[in-house]
């Protein structure tokens, strides 16, 4: 009997026999569990934040229109007002301005590393920049506080604690991230693009400008967006230099606040469940929504990347 089995049947038999101590199945259980936990954690955070964040509107009776459009923020007064526009504006201003500053610098540095000085770039620059990515944000904030704030106060004007200081600190902080990711995007390009452009008589600049940059655009945009995601979520470093006043800044030199700084400053002394506490959750929910949007933008660009 046994000897007359076909090869495929023997294989099936064999795997069934081993089913009690089946490494295939054990491995499957481990990875399925890991994947399941990741999904559950993400969903749990989102649901919790949505539930808390929306309480402001249906339990504390805060007018959503007022929340998003008013600049009157006085949640602890006798007649409390909850206009969060200042912080939404502050967060977006810091994020967008730093992206505008960092995109050309980061991409430029990445071009230098990958195309102009590839051997030196790989040996020296890349490791240095990777170390910079890992520096904790409190250090950037501390340096901003002791060097940048006095510098702005003395050389430019104002108190030094300002939107400008926040933008500069965040820019310095996300520059290494954007640079490494841009360098990765350029390194991923097939070498055939470079050699065929050179073989046609193009100069290095023509090759970079006309072939490599256009081909790398989805990857470069992804780098900038991930930098923005880091910028919008940054609290500590900004909090140390931005001044944390509840005012809409009239100029770059005025102090202001962001959503993250207001959350960290107030979460300690508000009672859980109070309107004052609920609005902080709402700000958190907005941050989560923005970072979801940024991640979706990255995925969209990633799907378009084909070379």
């Amino acid at each position, binding site marked *: 009997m046994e000897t007359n089995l076909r090869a495929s049947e023997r294989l099936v038999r064999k795997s069934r026999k081993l089913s009690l101590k089946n490494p295939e199945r054990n491995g499957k259980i481990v990875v399925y569990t890991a994947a399941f936990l990741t999904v559950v954690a993400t969903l749990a955070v989102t649901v919790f934040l949505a539930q808390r964040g929306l309480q402001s509107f249906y339990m504390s009776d805060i007018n959503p229109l007022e929340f998003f459009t008013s600049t009157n923020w006085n949640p602890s007064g006798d007649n409390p007002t909850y206009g969060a526009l200042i912080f939404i504006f502050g967060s977006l201003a810091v994020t967008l301005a730093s992206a505008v500053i960092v995109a050309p610098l980061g991409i430029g540095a990445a071009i230098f590393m990958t195309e102009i000085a*590839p*051997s030196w770039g790989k040996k020296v620059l890349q490791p240095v920049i990777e170390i910079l990515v890992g520096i904790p944000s409190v250090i950037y904030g501390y340096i901003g506080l002791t060097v940048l704030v006095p510098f702005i106060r003395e050389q430019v004007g104002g108190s030094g604690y300002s939107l400008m200081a926040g933008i500069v600190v965040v820019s310095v902080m996300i520059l290494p991230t954007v640079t490494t990711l841009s360098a990765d995007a350029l390194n991923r390009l*097939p*070498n*055939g*693009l*470079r*050699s*065929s*452009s*050179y*073989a*046609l*008589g*193009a*100069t*290095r600049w*023509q090759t970079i400008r*006309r*072939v490599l940059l*256009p*081909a790398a655009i989805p990857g470069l945009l992804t780098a900038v967006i991930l930098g923005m995601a880091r910028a919008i979520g940054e609290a500590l470093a900004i909090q140390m230099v931005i001044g944390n006043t509840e005012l809409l800044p009239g100029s770059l030199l005025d102090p202001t606040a962001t959503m993250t700084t207001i959350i960290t400053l107030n979460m300690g002394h508000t009672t859980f469940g109070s309107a004052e506490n609920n609005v902080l959750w709402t700000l958190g929910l907005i941050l989560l929504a923005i970072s979801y949007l940024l991640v979706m933008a990255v995925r969209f660009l990633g799907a378009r990347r*084909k*070379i």
Partner: protein
Amino acid sequence: MTEAIFKTENLKIAYGKNQVIHGIDWDIIEGEVTALIGPSGCGKSTFLKTLNLLVRSMSDDVKLSGSITFSGKNILNDKIDAIDLRKQIGMVFQQPNPFPKSIFENVAYGPRIHGVKKKRELQEIVEQTLIEAYLWDEVKDRLEDSALGLSGGQQQRLCIARALATKPDVLLMDEPTSALDPISTLGIEELIRKLEGQYSVILVTHQMEQAARVSDTTAFLYMGELIETNKTSQLFSNPTEKQTEDYITGKFG
């Protein structure tokens, strides 16, 4: 005696300390299809990339010595403008590697960087070159589509068109069919035969049958040495060197 398009004298090529080509003296005849055969790693690709000085752009530590004479000048001399040289020497690579741009922009790339700006003139060049590369009929209605949407064989013919668009005298081909299926390979081989006469074609290949099918002259390169060069029919039917005979009869390589 026919003219030589390239004349190499004691050409040596090294990457750092690794000597790849050990002194080659060779006259490559103008207007012919010359095939360069040899086992992998024998230096044939490096030799080819030296003829347009591409090795210098792609590697920092390459050392070239001896001389290569092209249109009366030693191109290893520092005063030679590599950009000008490459305008006269087109190159096609192993992998079809069109730029991620439209079909039109791929062919127009060379003329554009060499200063052709007028749209009409570019259109004329693109049409002529695509006709020359036997691709026009297949793509004339979709010149603005991405070149990445073409099949492998079409992409390689587009790369040939792109190389021809700067109106070179020479076409260097580095195993142009090794990534293609047999039908596309035949298409490229036919195209090479049609280019013969108007262009000097130097074809690196590891398929001996291909060399036999398309070339006038074949050279056998082994371990960085030029073992034998002869009329293709002669080399394959009656090689003078023992090593050539061993290689073409499949005893090694």
